[in-house]
């Protein structure tokens, strides 16, 4: 029972790490980016290739996955994404579906359609027993890493100068740029950072989530759920939503495997019907 809870929390933290970048682009910049999972996949594949073919230790691949995805995001934001910020959502949906198709086929072309595995170091493979609860080292590691990053994220958005610039730029683009904030640079940095976090999550979760070319499509709805249910005005909203999703999914698959994702989707629709702005939206928000 507690093991399921623990596994669910690890899974949820991972979802949050990947989806947090999406919360910014989708929630704050109002860009429906269905291709977010592709950045996570890029990070995952980099980790797989580095650790399996070149023998780079797993821990070292994590920052590299972050950097690769962030660079990818930094390249795509000014060239492609920026042109579409003001377009209707239909355009954004089509555009990002197109990107997903391209990413899926390209990864299939270079790495094949089979599932990739990341070689974990031995100290992450074991399990420990804490007061009768069976805890996997790997999942514990995920929780710790994601927890630290989440705290950092919260601190950055709430307390730093960059965070207040970002919030200002999101609240009102024109006024923010009138105050001397370089909105383009803020958005670029945020997009790149969000993509980087997705890449890190992809690398970190390659073992847990499974890595194959259809990854962006398979998890697209999960990332979207986190953002839609969690709301986008805070860091804690999506975090709680992903934890809820993670625990519900793991528990659902364990207790009623027949119904699988059915419960998750129904729950999501029910929540969105009752609270169209998300579960944790403050009163009177958009």
């Amino acid at each position, binding site marked *: 029972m507690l093991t399921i809870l623990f596994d669910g929390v690890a899974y949820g933290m991972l979802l949050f790490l990947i989806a947090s970048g999406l919360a910014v682009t989708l929630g704050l910049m109002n860009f429906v980016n269905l291709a977010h999972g592709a950045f996570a996949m890029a990070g995952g594949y980099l980790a797989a290739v580095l650790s399996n073919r070149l023998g780079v230790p797993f821990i070292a691949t994590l920052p590299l996955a972050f950097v690769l995805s962030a660079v990818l995001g930094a390249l795509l934001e000014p060239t492609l994404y920026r042109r579409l910020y003001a377009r209707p959502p239909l355009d954004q949906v*089509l555009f990002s579906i197109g990107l997903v*198709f391209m990413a899926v*086929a*390209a990864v299939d072309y270079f790495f094949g359609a089979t599932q990739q595995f990341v070689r974990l170091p031995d100290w992450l493979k074991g399990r420990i027993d804490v007061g009768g609860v069976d805890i996997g080292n790997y999942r514990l590691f995920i929780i710790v890493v994601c927890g630290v990053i989440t705290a950092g994220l919260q601190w950055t958005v709430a307390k730093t100068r960059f965070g207040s610039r970002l919030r200002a730029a999101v609240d009102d683009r024109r006024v923010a740029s009138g105050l001397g904030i370089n909105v383009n640079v803020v958005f670029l940095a945020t997009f790149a950072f969000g993509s980087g976090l997705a890449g890190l999550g992809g690398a970190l979760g390659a073992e847990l989530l499974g890595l194959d070319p259809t990854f962006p499509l398979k998890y697209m709805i999960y990332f979207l759920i986190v953002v839609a249910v969690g709301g986008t005005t805070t860091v804690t909203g999506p975090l709680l939503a992903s934890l809820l999703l993670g625990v519900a999914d793991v528990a659902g698959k364990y207790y009623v495997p027949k119904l699988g994702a059915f419960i998750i989707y129904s729950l999501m629709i029910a929540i969105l019907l009752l609270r169209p702005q998300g579960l944790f939206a403050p009163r009177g928000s958009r």
Partner: protein
Amino acid sequence: MPPAPLPHGGELARTSHWKPYEAVVWVVAALALLVFPQQAALWNEIAILALFAVSLDLVLGYAGILTLGHAAFFGTGCYAAALFAKYALHDPLAGLAVGMLAAAVLGFVTSFLVLRGSELTRLMVTLGVASILYELANRFEGITGGADGLQGVVMGPLLGRFAFGLDAKVACLYSLCVLFLLFLVARRVAHSPFGYSLKAIRDNPTRAAAIGIDVNRRIVAVYTLGAALAGAAGALLAQTTAFASLDVLGFDRSADVMLVLVLGGTGYLYGGVLGAVLFRVLQDALSAWTPQYWQFWLGLVLVVIVLIGHERIVRRWQALLRRLVRDRAAAPMERR
């Protein structure tokens, strides 16, 4: 010279006149079957895809409801028709009606889910409904056949006389006729005051409500109608291939039909037909060239279309269609 005042309703009557290019589209469609009968299976597929895209056009192009789960209705119609043929009657027309009805009921029920919330909420809800149906079809293998697909669908002869043969000629003719008839329905709706009120809702729901349009009821109505047409397309697929598989409910199908519609252009119904032809040609050409990786190029086409602006493409198509038939007397192009 000021234009003569039109009689009441004259504007609608004028814009709903049949234009020469519309006749050309249907004559070409009929000729395609006559000239290339050996390609009947392909024309059949195109007709079904066109009907599916037209149904999406009503929902997305006219009413502006952004949906990522239109395949839910296609799949419902498909499974309903297949199950009906397997367990009840083999008559195709009855099966078609059952497929449409099932999809329409689902559309009516789920239409209340898309009334509230932002674009993102709608997106998630439509996607969620389609995913739920996919999961259900996957789990209840006893009924749907699960991942193996529904086998053993037997179709009776059409109107009790014309049997579906292996050469797909009857199937193709059947699909074309259904497409034509349902297209007439969609066309009638689109050119009616109701259709114009949908465009008003799409362009600005608040103003539409302010001038007395009951936004919610109209969205429910058009969503149900769109679902019924999508269900008809699904039923046609099940009947002409005597098979139903899980992918009729998949996300790829919803994404594909969106691409079809955007290729042809949204908001004028012929976009669906034109897009279906283009999409199949594109798909065939790409998959002949790179069988495994054609999705990459499909994705690229999507990205490029969006960057160019798909509305510009619509205008280009309409101008081309007009020029083809020297339709100088045509109504001035619709302004958006």
